[in-house]
């Protein structure tokens, strides 16, 4: 070792190492300059770009859904409001593995395939950092289960949101309609920006028709969030504007009264104020609970509602089309007088059937033995068919059709709701167009008693009855009395619109018809005489029995033998008080048999309730406490 030490040249070694140290110092400087250059590029040259990125990292636009407008009945009873309900929501951006998260969540709550499907649909229209509801309306138990375990899940939240609620449940559902979760179909129609954050949309009825009024305007919040998307503070806010409140023309007491009268029967009642077209009750039975639809109905519940016999989802008042039967007789009677094809006292002999010239076929009267010598008053009071066959034959289908259209038959009334159907007022032109066939004289006869192709909706029938009570002046039926703008505190009244006026040639003609209708109830032989008991005001009415199926020639119609489904529909129209009509009603009880026995009592009860509120006081107050 010693000799090697001597070989070491300390001076040159020192110089060598020092040179290398200096070189190192230079390299250090060069490399750090590169880093500083990089910093310069990032912080000066590209500063704006990174500033923007930094802001878009932390600032987010959050949609604030507006509160949906409330719906009240004409007396201020709440028909639709919003209640807070707990929802399970997911922010997709924060979920690493959605399937895995859903799998784990289902250990704590039941999540159906249907709900997952709906969730995936809904998440398509939300941005990744927006929360998408998975489960609505968590029960207390589910809430407790989830809340305790929520920390295990990233991007899963429980939020209280306002959810549509219908306090009356199944009452008035066909007048109101309902809201449901926004689906693919709705997406094509709605304004995406305004519905950012909204989960519900009107699906049917008023809720759909007045969607734009009820929904309101979306608000926005600029919020600062952290990396896990949690909102830290609100930077600024543009609050949402609540939807407008609707005040309906519906009287919920009258509505419930009518619905309760139906018990297990199916059918429909429409009651309106003829003087302005305000619909007081719009009943379609059986009914259903719209609350089931708000958060998406379960398959099981939906199955029961799809009952093909009772069809609770079917809105009979607007969509149901029925043969009007004898309820058309006052109208055709008036047509006969107005066109002078009959005189008031002119009689027709009824022998139980009517024969067209040169035809074998017998057109039967409901009364096999016939009514004998029959004038107009008797024809209406006792509902003689033969009289009206003869009248129809004299009038001809063209005049009948033209006259009836002036009372709104065969055309939509234009009510402010969805899915109204037009009914059918047959005519030559219609037959050619729809069936490609000429009009047969026999069809004129059966149209004359409201059968054959003639179809009306309960709403149309009520509207026509109202028009008749006002000597031909027909107001457009409507469900909304006023629209309240809560922010501006404006109550916008809906102005009644006259949708048609029949110019009466002679007021006396009308008087004859109304007398006949009055006798239907008040006359000793009137078909609805049984409801006259204890009446303190005057009702003008007309019963009707609509055949559901045709009776073969010479066949006997035995009510008992015919299964219920094929039994006749029972109808009744009425307005009251006769001197100063305030309410017009049309009642249809499906397969109810005779109008006089089933339909008329419903009408009487409603007229009493509406015209004599004092007598019903006890009743109404009880119902209100039930709410």
């Amino acid at each position, binding site marked *: 070792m010693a000799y090697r030490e001597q070989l070491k040249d300390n001076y040159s070694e020192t110089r060598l*190492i*020092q040179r*290398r140290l200096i070189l190192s*110092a230079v390299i250090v400087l060069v490399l*750090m300059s590169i880093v500083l250059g990089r*910093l*310069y590029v990032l*912080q000066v040259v590209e*500063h704006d770009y990174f500033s923007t990125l930094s802001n878009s990292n932390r600032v987010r636009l959050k949609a604030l859904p507006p509160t949906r407008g409330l719906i009240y009945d004409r007396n201020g009873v709440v028909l639709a409001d919003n209640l807070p309900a707990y929802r399970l929501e997911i922010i997709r951006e924060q979920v690493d593995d959605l399937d895995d998260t859903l799998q784990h969540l289902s250990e704590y709550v039941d999540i159906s395939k249907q709900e997952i499907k709906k969730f995936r649909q809904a998440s398509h229209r939300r941005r990744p950092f927006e929360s998408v509801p998975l489960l609505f309306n968590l029960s207390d138990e589910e809430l407790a289960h989830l809340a305790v375990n929520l920390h295990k899940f990233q991007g899963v939240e429980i939020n209280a949101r306002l959810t549509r609620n219908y306090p009356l449940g199944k009452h008035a559902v066909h007048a109101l309609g309902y809201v449901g979760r926004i689906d693919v179909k709705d997406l094509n129609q709605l304004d995406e920006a305004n519905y950012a954050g909204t989960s519900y949309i009107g699906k049917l009825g008023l809720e759909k028709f007045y969607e734009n009024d009820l929904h309101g305007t979306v608000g926005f919040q600029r919020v*600062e969030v952290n990396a896990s998307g949690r909102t830290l503070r609100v930077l600024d806010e543009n609050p949402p504007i609540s939807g407008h409140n609707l005040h309906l023309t519906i009287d919920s007491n009258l509505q419930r009264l009518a619905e309760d009268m139906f018990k297990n029967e199916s059918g429909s009642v429409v009651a309106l104020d003829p003087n302005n077209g305000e619909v007081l009750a719009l009943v379609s039975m059986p009914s259903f609970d719209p609350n089931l639809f708000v958060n998406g109905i379960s398959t099981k519940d939906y199955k029961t509602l799809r009952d093909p016999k009772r069809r609770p989802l079917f809105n009979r008042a607007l969509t149901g089309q029925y043969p009007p039967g004898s309820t058309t007789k006052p109208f055709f009677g008036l047509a006969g007088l107005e066109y002078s094809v009959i005189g008031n006292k002119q009689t027709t002999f009824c022998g139980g059937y009517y024969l067209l010239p040169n035809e074998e076929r017998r057109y039967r009267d409901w009364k096999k033995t016939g009514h004998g010598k029959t004038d107009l008053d008797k024809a209406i009071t006792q509902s003689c068919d033969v009289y009206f066959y003869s009248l129809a034959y004299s009038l001809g289908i063209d005049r009948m059709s033209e006259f009836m259209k002036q009372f709104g038959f065969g055309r939509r009334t234009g009510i402010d709701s969805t899915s109204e159907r037009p009914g059918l007022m047959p005519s030559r032109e219609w037959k050619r167009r729809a069936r490609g066939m000429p009009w047969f004289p026999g069809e004129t006869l059966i149209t004359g008693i409201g059968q054959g192709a003639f179809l009306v909706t309960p709403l149309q029938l009520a509207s026509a009855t109202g028009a008749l009570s006002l000597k031909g002046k027909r107001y457009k039926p409507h469900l909304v009395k006023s629209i309240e703008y809560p922010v501006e505190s404006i109550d916008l009244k809906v102005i009644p619109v006259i949708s048609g006026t029949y110019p009466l040639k002679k007021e006396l003609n009308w008087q004859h018809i109304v007398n006949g209708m009055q006798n239907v109830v008040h006359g000793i032989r009137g078909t609805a005489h049984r409801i006259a008991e204890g009446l303190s005001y005057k009702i003008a009415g007309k019963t009707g029995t609509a055949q559901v199926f045709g009776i073969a020639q010479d066949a006997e119609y035995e009510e008992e033998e015919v299964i219920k489904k094929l039994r006749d529909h029972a109808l009744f129209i009425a307005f009251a008080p006769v001197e100063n009509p305030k309410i017009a009603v049309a009642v249809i009880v499906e397969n109810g048999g005779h109008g006089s026995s089933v339909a008329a009592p419903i009408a009487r009860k409603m007229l009493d309730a509406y015209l004599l509120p004092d007598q019903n006081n006890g009743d109404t107050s009880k119902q209100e406490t039930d709410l």
Partner: protein
Amino acid sequence: MNRAMDGDQVSISRRVLDAFRLDPTLMMLLFILSAFGLLILFSASGSNMDLLFRQLTRLGIASVLMIIVANVSLRLLKKLSLGFYLAGVLMLIAVIAFGEVGKGAQRWLDLGFLRFQPSEFMKLAMPMMVASYLSSKVLPVGWKDLLVSAGLVLVPVLLIAKQPDLGTSILVASAGFFVLFLAGVRWKIFMILGILVSLMAPLLWKFALHDYQRGRILTMLNPENDPLGSGYHIIQSKIAIGSGGVYGKGWLNGTQSQLDFLPERSTDFIFSVFGEEFGLFGAILLVFLYLLIIYRGLYIAAVSEDTYGRLLAGALSLTFFVYLFVNTGMVTGLLPVVGVPLPLVSYGGTSMVTLMVGFGMIMAIGSAKRFLR
């Protein structure tokens, strides 16, 4: 330095420092840097006082160790070199055999009373060993010594890389390499080595690197390819630094860091927090402070009168620089993400102890000249 010997004019603090054989310039610089570090750590941790105190405690322990090491004589240090090195290698083998797995890598050795990271220890033992070996040889280094030294470097580096810990193996390798470099390996050899490495690069890429390491390099080249996966760190770090601008967003006001967008912000990515909150000015100041520390170390090396001291002090100072360069290069997207902390600033104990002990050695080398003769 010699002025320190002159009696009366010398201040009391200087005398105290001298008594503990501490280098006043380096002490002051380290003190300022630590203060900076605590300041930014407070912000990066979300004003977490607990964390700050833990870091302060470590800093205290590390400083005590530094003072102790500063008082060890150069001769003893040199004598310990071989023993330390052998112990280090044995411990690295032990880690692979019985080590604890943390974050997918075996790095820790649990000795019952303390958990110990032998690779960290190797950062010091390596330059000591190579310096001690080469200081007894004739410089510049000949082929035979070069091969022996290369072997001394490669064995522990490969053991560490196997753990796997790319960051530490780079640091350990550079510590050994710097000794060789300072000891005057000829340029010709560097060129041959360079050519060899570039020839072997594809093979290394294929066989020596783990998948995640390859991924990190690819990510560095194009972080936007995988913005939510491995590119996320780099993208968020660049956003933090870039959005800081010239003057920064202000202390505790960095949105990227305070709102959790920046991952690993109190450890490996703490420089990004600094860049965001103090801007380009702050970053330049910090880099300048680091450079002063490095140059002070290199100066102590240069003026040392002992070859071993020169080589060791130079290598330790340059290793400190590698920390700085790799970390700042990584957070600015110049280099791939390898787990190298920002020295003395990043939260974490082991590297701080190693670094401070290293500075203790540098001080011991610096004071050797003053006191040993």
